[in-house]
């Protein structure tokens, strides 16, 4: 078979492998990193899930792990309201369909069995774990101590779930011991305070894992078993396992004859990030390398904060692990592997680590993806990119994320699209936001780059430095069948007190995009994501910054799983913040604020940056109303809601134009 360009370039990634009796077509394992929450409350797989799984099955991965199913009828293992169950044969028909989908696409099908332990019992109001160690996160249920009888029953249920998975047509199974799930709570000193044979020494703490592995191997002797194990818990500060202990446990699993170890990082309760974009890609690779060195004869899979196929290929070349385990990058772009194999990596929509997926899961919602609006909606025709019934000439005003997403989708459907952008480049306000993001800047910048690449590839005409106004419209009248106003937001300076000196009040957008140079001593009005991002960046570059926020707390519009990051940066950078405070005067030497108690305070500043309130740029809507047949508004221009909604709005509008 002829090798494609990307396969030659990433030859280690696309190298076939033998795993036990299986021929694996490449070194890529789809990791069951998240439960989707797309299923019924009683554990049945829905058409929504099946449609999503079809996309996963077609990703091109050599091994595909289906998301974790809880193995017990009581629901002690159930972590998410709409998690799938596998404690009874009644669930099998849909599992059979999933196994078939994966195998029909040339993948090895693995079913994960997920007993959430400390994070389980979502419907019960309590959870089980080795010892009563209360939760440290308010989301989870109060613990009860698992009895020996329950231990035996739980092991039996895992073994039965494994046998049921094989009966459904899966090639193997996986159990997971990280994040604080049941197996992890036995392994960890943090949660295992037992004094019987399941607690105390590391040998005893590992007993549950060894018995579990043994039971599953006995139930499914001819089928591989993967175990996910922490390379580090990040919980050692409060008595959790050290890295050395994690590797001792890994060795125990290896001795028990597991067929693959997937190395993971962190507990949900860990004080440090593990997968957010504040962690540089490749940061945790050393853990995989250590596992490989420790267990040279056991295949090791790894992918924590390793979103880049080029980096993964290099790691494989260096023998750091045997399989690249990838999930979130494939949520963002299910065609990632195909694009990589065809040498089209520049066309990949990268996972930007926004944590939208997890923010939603921990609000008990189905997961979605900032970058992939179709995720979770595959079953809905409205989200499919289909050829347009009527060809249209479409003008899109604004080359920010909403406008570009709409342009790309509309173009794919066969429309002719012209984008008008008043600035000199694609990206809108995201360019400024990405420039000042304290986390991994390339993640957000990659969104802009993707739009530039795709505009070129699809032949979308982008007229830069072109402001759409009535005069221009008169010149191009009747050239377009549809117009989309995606002009984003601006800061409504008129909503703020009139500045008493010229030039002292500037907009966040102007500073972020480099149109205005910041002074050294600054007040930022608005402690939302724009104000905070700018404040953090400017403070890091040596400015003195104070943030004023009207609400009780800062970061109100930030993704829930990312709020802590801004709050922590603000603290670490020692940026004073005044909450429940409004600005009453903007003078030449600073601002006057009134706090929640009605007390007045003066804050000195050489420049005041307004990052609030945001207002949609809707002026063109009125102007265009009688100039074009179809007029649409999308993204922040309609209601300022940020990047995720802008991308999703643009995509959906592109699907229905």
């Amino acid at each position, binding site marked *: 078979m002829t090798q494609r360009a990307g396969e030659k370039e990433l030859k280690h990634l696309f190298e076939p492998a033998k795993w036990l009796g299986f021929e694996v077509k490449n070194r890529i394992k789809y990791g069951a990193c998240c439960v989707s929450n797309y299923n019924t409350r009683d554990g049945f797989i829905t058409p929504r899930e099946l449609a999503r799984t079809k996309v996963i099955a077609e990703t091109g991965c050599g091994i595909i792990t289906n998301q974790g199913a809880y193995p017990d009828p009581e629901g002690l293992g159930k972590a998410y309201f709409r998690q799938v169950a596998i404690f009874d044969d009644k669930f099998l028909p849909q599992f059979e369909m999933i196994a078939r989908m994966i195998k029909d696409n040339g993948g090895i099908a693995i079913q994960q069995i997920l007993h959430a332990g400390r994070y389980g019992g979502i419907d019960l109001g309590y959870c089980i774990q080795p010892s009563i160690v*209360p*939760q440290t*996160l*308010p989301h989870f249920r109060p613990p009860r*101590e698992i009895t020996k009888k329950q231990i035996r029953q739980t092991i039996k249920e895992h073994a039965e779930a494994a046998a049921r998975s094989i009966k459904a047509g899966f090639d193997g199974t996986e159990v997971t011991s990280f994040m604080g799930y049941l197996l992890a709570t036995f392994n960890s000193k943090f949660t295992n305070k037992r004094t019987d044979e399941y607690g105390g020494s590391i040998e005893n703490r590992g007993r549950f894992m060894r018995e579990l592995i043994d039971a599953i191997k006995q139930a499914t002797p001819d089928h591989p078993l993967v175990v996910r194990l922490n390379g580090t818990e990040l919980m050692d500060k409060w008595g959790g396992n050290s890295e050395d202990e994690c590797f001792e446990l890994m060795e125990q699993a290896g001795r028990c004859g597991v067929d693959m170890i997937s190395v993971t990082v962190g507990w949900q309760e*860990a*004080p440090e990030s593990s997968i957010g974009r504040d962690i540089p890609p490749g940061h945790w690779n050393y853990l995989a390398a250590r596992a490989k060195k420790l267990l040279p004869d056991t295949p090791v899979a790894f992918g924590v904060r390793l979103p880049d196929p080029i980096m993964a290929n290099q790691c494989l070349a260096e023998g750091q692990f045997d399989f690249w385990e990838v999930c979130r990058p494939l949520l963002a772009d299910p065609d990632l592997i195909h694009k990589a194999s065809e040498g089209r990596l520049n066309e990949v929509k990268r996972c930007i680590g926004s944590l939208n997926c*997890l923010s939603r899961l921990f609000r008990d919602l189905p997961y979605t993806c900032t970058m992939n609006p179709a995720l979770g909606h595959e079953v809905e025709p409205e989200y499919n990119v289909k050829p347009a019934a009527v060809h249209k000439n479409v003008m899109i005003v604004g080359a920010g994320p909403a406008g570009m997403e709409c342009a790309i989708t509309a173009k794919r459907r066969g429309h002719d699209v012209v984008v008008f952008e008043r600035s000199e480049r694609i990206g809108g306000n995201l360019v400024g936001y990405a420039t000042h993001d304290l986390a991994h800047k390339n993640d957000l910048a990659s969104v802009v780059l993707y739009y530039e690449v795709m505009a070129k590839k699809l032949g979308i005409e982008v007229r830069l430095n072109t402001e759409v106004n009535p005069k221009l419209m008169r010149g191009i009248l009747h050239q377009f069948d549809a117009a989309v106003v995606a002009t984003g937001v601006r800061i409504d300076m008129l909503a703020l007190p009139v500045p008493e000196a010229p030039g002292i009040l500037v907009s966040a957008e102007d500073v972020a995009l480099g149109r205005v140079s910041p002074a050294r001593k600054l007040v930022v009005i608005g402690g939302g994501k724009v104000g905070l991002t700018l404040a953090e960046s400017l403070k890091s570059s040596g400015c003195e910054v104070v943030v004023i926020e009207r609400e009780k707390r800062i970061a109100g519009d930030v993704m829930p799983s990312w709020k802590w*990051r801004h709050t*922590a940066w603000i603290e670490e950078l020692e940026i004073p913040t005044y909450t429940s405070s409004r600005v009453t005067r903007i003078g030449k030497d600073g601002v006057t604020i009134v706090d929640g108690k009605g007390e007045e305070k003066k804050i000195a500043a050489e420049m005041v940056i307004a990052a609030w309130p945001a207002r949609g740029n809707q002026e063109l809507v009125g102007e265009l109303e009688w100039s074009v047949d179809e007029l649409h508004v999308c993204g922040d221009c309609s209601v300022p809601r940020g990047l995720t909604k802008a991308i999703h709005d643009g995509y959906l509008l592109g699907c229905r134009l």
Partner: protein
Amino acid sequence: MRRLVVSMTMQIEQVMQLALAGWQTLLDRHTDIFHSMLPGARIGFLSKDDFEPPSAMMIVWEAGAEGMRASYEPFPGFEKVKIDLLFIADDAAIRRLHDPHTPTPFAEIKSKVRHRDILLYVVRPRDELLDCGYEDFIDSLGLSFMGACR
């Protein structure tokens, strides 16, 4: 060895015997943080060096009709403790919190919780905490979405 054990025990006792008046002053100075808590809401503090019953003592802040009141109680263990939130901190942190010269004690707690220098156990489920009026307190400590697979 025995001397060391005795000395450590004494230290713990000293921390857990800091004047109640000091704790009360702290609570009275920060009524805004607790204003929405319903009577019966209880927050505990334990020394990191001793949270094994029956020896361990805990500081308890309990909401009553007249605001938060401080007291000492024996710690009966995680299983039996009647508390909503339980902070476990080292002696130095407890002393700083108690010290009237500490300018922003709750900001310190927040920072130490974030860095896990103080461990916070959430003993009651979130919904119950919210019903008891803990929303402001939990949010002021930035706990809502800490962790959670970041």
